[in-house]
C-alpha cells in the first residue's frame, strides 16, 4: 500500500475506533474483572484491529467487528480460557429452545428498581461471563440483536434465548438480596416507630 493509502486507512481506523475507546475499556473490565488485564485486553484489541483493518469492509458494522476481536482475544487469554471451561456443558442444548415466559413479581421489581447500583453491580459480577457479556452488549452498548449476533458469532435465535436466560438468572440472583433489603427497611421503619 502506498503512503497516502496507508494514511487514509489509519485515518479511517482512528475515526471509527477512537470514539469506542471508553466503551471497549468498560466491556473489557467487566470481562476480565481486573484493571491491568482490561488494559492489556484493550491494547491487544486495538493492535489486532489495526493490523486486520485492511480486511474490514468499510460501510459494514465496525462496532460489532471490533467487539468481536476484543471478545475473541479475551477468550484466548488465560482468564478467558478458564472462564469458558466453567461454562455449563449443556449451554448449547439449552439454546435450542426459547426460554418460556417468566412470571414477574411487580412489587419486587419496583423494589429492585430502587435498590442500589452496588447491588446490581455485584449481581452482574457474579453472573457467568456468557450471560454478563450479552446483557452488557444489549443494555449498556445498546446493540441490536443483529449486532450482538455478529459480535458473539451466534444466530439471532440464540441471542434471544440467551438474553432471556441471562435476565432470569440475574433476577434469581437479585431476589434474595432484594428480600434482605426489604427486611432491613421494615426493621428500620419499626425501630424508627419505637
Amino acid at each position, binding site marked *: 500500500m502506498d503512503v497516502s493509502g496507508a494514511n487514509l486507512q489509519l485515518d479511517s481506523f482512528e475515526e471509527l475506533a477512537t470514539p469506542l475507546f471508553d466503551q471497549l475499556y468498560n466491556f473489557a473490565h467487566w470481562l476480565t474483572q481486573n484493571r491491568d488485564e482490561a488494559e492489556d485486553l484493550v491494547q491487544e484489541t486495538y493492535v489486532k484491529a489495526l493490523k486486520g483493518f485492511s480486511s474490514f469492509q468499510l460501510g459494514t458494522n465496525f462496532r460489532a467487528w471490533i467487539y468481536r476481536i476484543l471478545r475473541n482475544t479475551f477468550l484466548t487469554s488465560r482468564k478467558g480460557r478458564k472462564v469458558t471451561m466453567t461454562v455449563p456443558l449443556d449451554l448449547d442444548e439449552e439454546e435450542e429452545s426459547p426460554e418460556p415466559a417468566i412470571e*414477574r413479581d411487580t412489587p419486587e*421489581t419496583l423494589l429492585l428498581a430502587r435498590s442500589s447500583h452496588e447491588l446490581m453491580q455485584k449481581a452482574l459480577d457474579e453472573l457467568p461471563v456468557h450471560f454478563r457479556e450479552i446483557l*452488557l452488549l444489549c*443494555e449498556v452498548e445498546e446493540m441490536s440483536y443483529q449486532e450482538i449476533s455478529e459480535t458473539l458469532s451466534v444466530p439471532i435465535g440464540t441471542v434471544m434465548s440467551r438474553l432471556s436466560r441471562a435476565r432470569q438468572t440475574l433476577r434469581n440472583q437479585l431476589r434474595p438480596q432484594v428480600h434482605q433489603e426489604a427486611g432491613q427497611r421494615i426493621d428500620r421503619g419499626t425501630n424508627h416507630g419505637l
Partner: protein
Amino acid sequence: MVCESWKAKVDTYVDGEVPEEEIASLDSHVRNCSSCSADALSCVQLKRAIQVAGKRFTPSVEFRKRMHRRMAPKPRRSFRLGWILAAAAAVVLVAGSLTSTYLGNRSGTDQIFSEIADLHVATLASSSPVDVISTDRHTVKPWFQGRIAFAFNLPELQNSEFSLLGGRMTYLEQTPGAHLIYDVRKHHISVFMFQERSLPARLSDSALQQGKLSFNMETWSQGGLRYFVIGDASVADIDRLAKLFKTAS
C-alpha cells in the same frame, strides 16, 4: 391477543426488536392489560438498572495517554511532497512489476518479523506475561501438551547464563504456537515456535540485527518447526540461545 403469547414476546418488545407488523397489536394489548403492562414495566426497569450499573469502569488517565500516543497519527507530509511521493510511487510500481514475486515474499517476511517483534513487546508489557511460570523445562514443556499440535524440545540450561521464566500460548497469523521467555543478564528473550507449513510466508533462515526491528532476532527451520529468537540482548546472546535450541531439537 392472548396474554401467554404476549408474555413470550415481552423481552423482544422492550428491546425494540419485534417485527414492525406486530408493534401496533402489542402496543394496543399492553395498554389494555394491567398484568402485561406490569411485565413490560418490570422489564424496562431491569434494563435501566443494568444500563446504569453497567457503565462502571473508566480507563485511567495514564492508560488513555499511553493509547493516545500509540494511536497518534504520524506527522503529515505536505501536499507538494505528497505529489512527489506519488510520482516516486509510480516509478516504484513500474520497477516493482519486474520483481513482484521477490517483493511479495519480502513483504510477507517483513510482516511476520514485525508481528514477532509486536508479540515479544506486547507480552513483556503485559501484567501476566506467561501462563506457565517455571524455570524447569520439564514443567514448562508438558504444559503445552494438548494446547498445540506439535511437540518440541527445550534445551538444558545448566552451565549457561540463560534461565527459563515460563511459557504461554501464542498466535501468529492465526497459527497457534509456543512462546517461551528466557532471561539473560536482566534481558528478556522470547523464543517462538510454529509449524513451518502453517505460516503464510516462506521464510529463509536469517539473523537480523538492531536497526531494522529495534531487536536482535534469529530465525531458522528445523524438524518442521519455524523458530524465532528475539530480544534486546546482544547478537551473541541471541545466537547462543539459538544454538542451544538447535542442539536440543
